[in-house]
């Protein structure tokens, strides 16, 4: 690399941004699947189940993502597992995301009145039909805006994956800056790229929220 910021550097940053997106997607998909189980565990009839899953959520929410990254990479490494940085970062993001999405979705599921479960039960729907046909569709409406909002947190927090040597946007910026020593320029571009990733998500979340509040169906013509 030359000592002037050029197109190659920009490409390197964009490449890093793509990995940021990829890691975000992995964290969201993995964390979403695990988070759904967390949400179900938190509303399960079994008190033991609710308690154990509750402890999991408290533990994860009370632990910095940075520590989760270290544990996933170095911790598993010490235990003899050879974990590539991408897998370690993906695992840490998944666990971190599951605790937060799980709680968001638990709240959404619980906001559906108990009587809806009851009415479904009285129509002989099976427990899984009650959940997926009656309760989840209603909870989705409530859960979507905060879920999209949390996506922004996921994208920004992938920057912590740089500590395990995963070259996403933040790490790419550091690498370039170490070569050029143009911190203001490099980090500004980095910030802009993060902003370009997050701002559309924020807009989307706001739009969804607005639709939830004012977009109620109007009465049929009288």
């Amino acid at each position, binding site marked *: 690399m030359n000592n002037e910021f050029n197109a190659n550097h920009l490409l390197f940053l964009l490449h890093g941004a793509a990995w940021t997106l990829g890691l975000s997607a992995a964290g969201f998909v993995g964390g979403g699947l695990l988070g759904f189980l967390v949400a179900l565990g938190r509303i399960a009839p079994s008190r033991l189940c609710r308690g154990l899953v509750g402890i999991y959520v408290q533990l994860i929410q009370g632990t910095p993502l940075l520590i989760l990254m270290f544990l996933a990479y170095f911790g598993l490494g010490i235990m003899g597992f050879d974990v590539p940085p991408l897998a370690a970062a993906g695992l840490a993001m998944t666990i971190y995301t599951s605790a937060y999405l799980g709680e968001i979705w638990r709240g959404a599921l619980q906001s559906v009145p108990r009587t809806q479960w009851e009415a479904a039960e*009285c129509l*002989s729907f099976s427990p899984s039909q009650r959940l997926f046909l009656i309760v989840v569709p209603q909870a989705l*409406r409530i859960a979507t805006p905060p879920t999209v909002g949390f996506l922004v947190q996921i994208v920004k927090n992938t920057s912590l994956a740089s500590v395990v040597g995963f070259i996403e946007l933040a790490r790419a910026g550091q690498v370039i800056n170490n070569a050029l020593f143009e911190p203001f320029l490099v980090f500004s571009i980095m910030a802009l790229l993060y902003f370009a990733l997050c701002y559309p998500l924020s807009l989307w979340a706001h739009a969804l929220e607005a639709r939830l509040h004012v977009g109620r*169906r109007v009465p049929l013509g009288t």
Partner: protein
Amino acid sequence: MNDNTPLVRLDQVQKSFGTAKVLDGVSFDVHRGQVVAIIGRSGSGKSTALRCIDRLETIDGGSITVCGQSLGSASLDLRRLRREVGIVFQSYNLFPHLTVAQNVSLALRKVRGKSAAQAGEITERVLCQVGMHDKLQAYPEQLSGGQQQRVAIARSLAMEPQLMLFDEVTSALDPQLTGEVLKVMEKLAAEGMTMILVTHEMAFARGVADKVVFMHQGQVWEQGDAGILGAPRTPELRQFLGNGL
């Protein structure tokens, strides 16, 4: 089951919420084709008794038999019980994310395994029965309370239950809307449906019920044909009717 076996039998039913005893030895029978009105003050246990019949509440003592199934037995098939028993709630409890037609047809397809065409046919028929067939594509929140309640009745009817339970279904409605719901229930009764209703509508109980059960302090205080409303034997029923009307 021969015709002398009651469709529903409550025998010495006991039920407590914590330390509060809500049902204290409740017994009554309901025969096929009968309309039974359960009346009483708030807190007398009448809604709880009704909910026990659909096993939305479990009981602490005594026994309940519904459509030949003992609710206390370990081998009770809850889903089979719910297929025989329809229940309509005070707060309608329609599914807000589904249209009127979907509210009625969902269980037909997913529980009864009907094809879309069969389910559609039944849906139209039962919605016709309650006078809501012109609102198939409406969502519950676009309907009045009385309309929602009629859809809720249709939703239960579609499952072809042997027994319908009505839990204060008109309590949230103004007099005019109450009238339209009661008319539907009256028609059902005339068609021979077995019905148990918890109600505050004394005129309706007097006109439609074959049997009136007056509950007081978790007990069946007085029961008999609708005539007991005209000639109460106990001072409690006399006072209840005096206040209620």
